[in-house]
């Protein structure tokens, strides 16, 4: 099991030993334990980062298999493969696993690996807490997945777990679902505290806030969002727990509660949550595009302010998920306009990326391909989001496949493509080898065909009125669903290529120098490749690059 990503032997590779001693000799690090204990007890940010990434990749496949069960059932109209009850568990678990166990831990893993390297810190501020927050995750999701085997089955009420569907009418295993979500939430919160503490206190001498790479900036803002909204999620599921087990009536109309209150509370968490899943992606793309366009990022300061603006606005738009619950007209208008307002800072970002590319000296290595696909496809997802923001139109689109198409466009070629771009970008730093160019290109082209084949037809199915979360459908949707299912299996299979590329890259390949990409500027490229276990034991001297001014 024990993965071999971060090598323990420092300094066998080439090049620019900047930034103080990377060697272990100067410090009294006692010998790390061997085997599985090394991974259980590690407090090293690089090892923990790798654990997060491997965990997330595993869960990506688990969630992916659930999605393929859904797509297989929807391959043709009628009920073929699974019972509707099990279908509901699959849609629910797919959503929960992808959101909480795949995308969020992947970003935390990248943060663990790269933030200390990018700000010139020796490690995260709270290394032991870091270990704890990772090891909570396998516990949480083993618990969550085990509910599938319990009598009555696992959660079947959608990843949004609206009450009273998730309280009065829920399967018996719901209490375990709540506990699992609590543990995962604590993990995210601890991770966020650690990241904030690291960024605010451990930057290299001379590095101001406005000198930080954008990945660091976006993660700082994401961590603030996590601290603000994860407790609200914890509160909501605690109320559910009490409604189910202790006879309270927070969401039960019979006892004077209000089911609509659940939706308000959930989306007060839920909308910032969707930005938690995209802001770090903005940071990754903002690192990759300047590198491969060989130009400094256009509008660094405006990128920072746009990210902060998006984060602030995310607290004011939650009810756009609830246009049809019977909001008064003024509320519909307020949430419609505030939602549309988000297009402004997002547009600033897209403009800056495109302007960075303009007259750049562009090359198309795999990280750049994924980053460019991100910009185009995320923007498509943004546009369908704008359509959904129009309250009267949303009365038609609500709970149709159009919504499914929208959020899969922002999450799959959005968040997940950005994560893959980041992995390809930083793999040389992690392993000391370049990923296999040909296989990576193949992975990219298969992914982009698969993603669009899967999710583009969903727009049309949704506009034609196909509802979400239903195992059977009317005949007129058959062709769209056929295409989507073929695309999904193609996309799923092509992700095996990704695993192959990563494994091959860990084992060998073309050696990478410290500065693996010609146009790369940030601090992580000043330590050798592969990055030794301990870096920046003495803080580097930060030279303000011309890039950020």
């Amino acid at each position, binding site marked *: 099991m024990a993965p071999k990503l971060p090598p323990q032997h420092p300094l066998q590779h080439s090049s620019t030993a900047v930034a103080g001693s990377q060697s272990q000799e100067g*410090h009294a690090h006692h010998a790390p334990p061997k085997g599985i204990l090394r991974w259980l007890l590690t407090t090293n940010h690089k090892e923990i980062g790798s654990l997060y990434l491997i965990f997330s990749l595993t869960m990506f496949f688990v969630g992916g298999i659930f999605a393929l069960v859904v797509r297989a059932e929807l391959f043709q109209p009628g009920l073929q493969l699974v019972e509707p009850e099990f279908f509901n568990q699959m849609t629910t678990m797919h959503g929960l696993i992808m959101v909480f166990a795949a995308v969020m831990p992947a970003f935390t893993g990248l943060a663990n690996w790269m933030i200390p390297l990018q700000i010139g810190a*020796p*490690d995260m*501020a*709270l*290394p032991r807490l870091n270990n704890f927050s990772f090891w909570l995750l396998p516990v949480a999701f083993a618990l969550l997945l085990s509910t599938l085997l319990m009598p009555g089955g696992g959660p079947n009420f959608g990843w949004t777990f609206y009450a009273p569907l998730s309280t009065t009418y829920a399967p018996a295993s719901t209490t375990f679902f709540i506990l699992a979500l609590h543990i995962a939430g604590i993990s995210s*919160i601890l991770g*966020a*505290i650690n990241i*904030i*503490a690291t960024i*605010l*206190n*451990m930057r290299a001498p001379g590095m101001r806030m406005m000198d930080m790479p954008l990945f660091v900036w976006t993660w700082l803002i994401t961590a603030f969002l996590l*601290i*603000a*909204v*994860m*407790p*609200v999620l*914890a*509160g*909501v599921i605690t*109320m559910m727990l009490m409604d189910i087990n202790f006879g309270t009536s*927070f969401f039960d*109309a*019979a*006892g004077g509660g*209000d089911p*609509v*209150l659940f939706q*308000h*509370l959930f989306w*007060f968490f839920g909308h910032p949550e969707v930005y938690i899943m995209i802001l770090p992606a903005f940071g990754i793309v903002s690192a990759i595009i300047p590198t491969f366009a060989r130009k400094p990022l256009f509008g660094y300061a405006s990128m920072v302010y746009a990210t902060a603006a998006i984060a602030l606005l995310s607290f004011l738009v939650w009810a756009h998920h609830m246009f049809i619950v*019977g*909001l*008064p*007209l003024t*509320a519909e208008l307020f949430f419609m306009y505030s939602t549309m307002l988000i297009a402004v800072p997002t547009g600033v970002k897209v403009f800056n990326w495109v302007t960075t590319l303009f007259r750049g000296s562009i090359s198309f290595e795999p990280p750049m391909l994924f980053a460019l696909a991100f910009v185009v496809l995320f923007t498509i997802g943004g546009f369908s989001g704008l359509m959904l923001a129009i309250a009267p139109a949303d009365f038609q689109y609500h709970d149709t496949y159009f919504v499914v198409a929208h959020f899969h466009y922002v999450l799959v070629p959005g968040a997940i493509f950005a994560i893959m771009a980041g992995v390809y970008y930083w793999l040389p730093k992690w392993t000391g080898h370049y990923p296999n160019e040909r296989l990576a290109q193949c992975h990219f082209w298969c992914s982009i065909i698969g993603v669009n084949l899967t999710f583009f037809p969903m727009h049309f199915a949704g506009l034609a009125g196909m509802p979400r979360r239903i195992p059977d459908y009317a005949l007129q949707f058959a062709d769209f669903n056929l295409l989507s299912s073929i695309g999904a299996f193609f996309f799923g299979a092509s992700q095996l290529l990704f695993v192959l590329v990563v494994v091959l890259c860990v084992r060998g390949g073309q050696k990478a120098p410290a500065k693996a990409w010609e146009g790369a500027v940030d601090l992580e490229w000043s330590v050798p490749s592969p990055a030794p276990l301990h870096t*920046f*034991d*003495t803080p580097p001297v930060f030279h303000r690059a011309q890039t950020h001014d």
Partner: protein
Amino acid sequence: MAIEGYQEAGVRKTVVRSVAALVGMFAFAFALVPLYDVFCKVTGLNGKVDTTAQAIVHEEVDQSRFVTMQFITRGSAGLPWQMSVETRQMRVHPGQTAEVDFTFTNNSAVESWGRAVPSVSPSSATTHLRKVSCFCFQEQQLQGDERLTIPLVFQLARDLPEEINTITLVYTLYPVQRIALQTDQNNNSAGDNI
């Protein structure tokens, strides 16, 4: 690790502040529950009607316009009752006091307690609907196979916004778990036993 002294103090400060923010947000989530109730009561946002009787306000009836009142009744799982209303729809003038009979039927042979919970749509009409007498103010008790008719007396306020032409009043029946002993004060309200 190579955390310098000044960094350690900074980290401690950051952690303390973050934990304070966390606790605050957790408390805020729970505080939102009563806040939401107050907010809804003031604005009538979620269609929740006042659960206490209001006095009839004597104001001139606005003969110039009609408002359609629609009544919907719904049962719920766990309570073997049926609820019906004498008329599904009636037209009233703002300012006018009206009365409509609702009938509760217990379809089982066992006595049980239930409560009808009201909801008004559109929610902007909520605060303009005055209920003078309503079975929804109390829980009801029905003996086995009992039938009970109770009137609802209500008045639409004259300041009902112009654009509201139809108001829907929905009653949903919910079971009440209760030991049937302190029945006296409730029996008073159940006047029209059949």
